[in-house]
């Protein structure tokens, strides 16, 4: 009898301990978001969101950084979305379990693990210097695309695989070709899952700094970039600059910039979560 009391006491202690650990993991996340919201909101004004920085960035707005991050995110999407989805289609619909396929999978896992600053080096070596794009939106977007690719491929492949095999069998038996089946049936059913993966991948790209440090980020620009071959300011790099490189930087502007970046990223995260949960509740198979 004594043993069994100890066992149950043990369980209660253990469960409490694990619960506390989970709370200790999650609470700081909530605290970080609330703290930045509270500290950053006073800095937000029309001038801050639509103006250019002046007085050595110690006053004015962050418009060029916001626009730059938008450009970089769109640029990343242009390269990584079609390529990523096509690669996912290949892995899910065409590839069989050969050594080549396994090599592709290992390559994807490795791409996902390569440090972001190494992507920066690669981008500098290939896009900026070898292909002579210069420090530009184009070079930075392409660097970010390759970094985003593994996220998009693996989530899109998972979404494609979750479409029941019967859908494909029926479509083929009705006389559709393989590509018609993929385009009209499989892709359509997997769309919400793919979209979630795409947004989560782009969210990461939008928040990254290290890959754009030497491929496209500019310390300060007095005007908006006019072509893909121009360098650009970007929110994460701007936050890095004003929090470490500019002396006597007003704290309000720093928190304001952090807040705008956070809202940018959180909005994408929220959209992805909503798409996923709506698709799950609507799914009939």
């Amino acid at each position: 009898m004594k043993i069994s009391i100890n066992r149950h006491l043990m369980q209660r202690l253990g469960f409490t301990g694990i619960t506390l650990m989970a709370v200790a993991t999650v609470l700081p996340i909530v605290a970080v978001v609330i703290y930045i919201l509270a500290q950053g909101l006073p800095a937000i004004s029309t001038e801050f969101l639509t103006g250019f920085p002046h007085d050595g960035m110690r006053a004015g707005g962050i418009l060029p950084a916001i626009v730059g991050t938008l450009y970089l995110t769109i640029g990343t999407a242009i390269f990584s979305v079609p390529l990523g989805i096509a690669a996912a289609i290949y892995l899910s619909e065409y590839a069989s379990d050969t050594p080549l396929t396994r090599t592709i999978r290992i390559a994807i896992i490795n791409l996902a693990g390569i440090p972001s600053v190494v992507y920066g080096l690669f981008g500098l070596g290939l896009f900026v210097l070898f292909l002579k794009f210069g420090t530009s939106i184009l070079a930075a977007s392409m660097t970010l695309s390759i970094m985003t690719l593994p996220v998009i491929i693996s989530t899109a492949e998972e979404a494609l695989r979750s479409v029941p095999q019967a859908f494909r069998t029926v479509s083929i038996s009705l006389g559709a070709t393989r590509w018609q089946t993929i385009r009209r049936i499989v892709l359509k059913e997997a769309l919400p899952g793919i979209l979630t993966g795409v947004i989560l991948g782009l969210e990461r790209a939008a928040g990254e700094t290290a890959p754009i440090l030497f491929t496209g980020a500019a310390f300060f620009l007095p005007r908006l970039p006019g072509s893909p071959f121009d360098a650009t300011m970007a929110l994460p790099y701007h936050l890095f600059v004003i929090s470490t490189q500019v002396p006597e930087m007003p704290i309000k502007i720093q928190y304001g910039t952090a807040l705008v970046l956070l809202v940018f990223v959180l909005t994408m995260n929220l959209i992805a979560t909503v798409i996923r949960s709506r698709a799950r509740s609507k799914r009939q198979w």
Partner: protein
Amino acid sequence: MEKSLNWREFIITRLIQTSGYSAILFVALIFFFLLREGLPALSEVETSSLFNPRWYPIEDYFGILPLLTGSLIVTLGAGLIAVPFGIGTAVYISEIAPRWMREILKPLVELLGGLPSVVLGFLGILVLSPFIRVFLDLPTGLTALTGSILLGGIAVPTVVSVAEDALDAVPRAYREGAWALGATRWQTIWRVTLPAAKSGVLTAIMLGVGRAIGETMTVMMVTGNAPVLAVKLGSLFSPVRTMTATIAAEMGEVANGSTHYHVLFFIGMVLFLISLGVNIAASSVVFRAKKRAERILS
């Protein structure tokens, strides 16, 4: 009509196939460019001085040992935080939490994974490092420990999601069998579920550590960036400089093609090989576990 359909189908299939192979191409390209720009370092700097304990590029001291130890100590600290908290949270989410709690916790952990590292570094400078300086009574709050705490946070989502997948994959029958034998839920978790998910949990740890060693911005902002050899445990409380931070901080200022430039690429090559090793090890653990499971079940 029939013919053009076939042609389109053929071209599209080829395009898709090429995209499929692109991942291999990119890994190869990345490795090639790191080699191309990094290997000249070996001929320009003597191998013995590369392993010198002094990193002072202005006077041509290119010892990468302080950077290696800096990365190791920060990553070790991050692992000591991320592994218990990550696995604890994964166990809680997968085994203990009621359904509604799970629906709240999972997106929150995912959110942490999406937080830009520069935002964490920013808060590290303004909030965490002053706290550490006062709390531990140190001359500066920008220490390896500060980096470790934040990196721990960055590695946690990776550990949680991989470990949770592994725990979820353990068949329900295992747990029911243990309960039927009179084990409590706690005993079941420790003696049945976790051991059954061992390989997945191991993968989670490796990928988490891999994530930590490659993190750049947070570390550069909060560890103080002093290239000193970190070999004692006390180094945790003093400034260090990691490999990633060195590349990020110095690449912008070097002349293309200089020795310094080549050495920075060489460090990038070392980082690439470390992440390659970690990831191949992690996927081979999974692969072997899968093979073993197939053997037992057949």
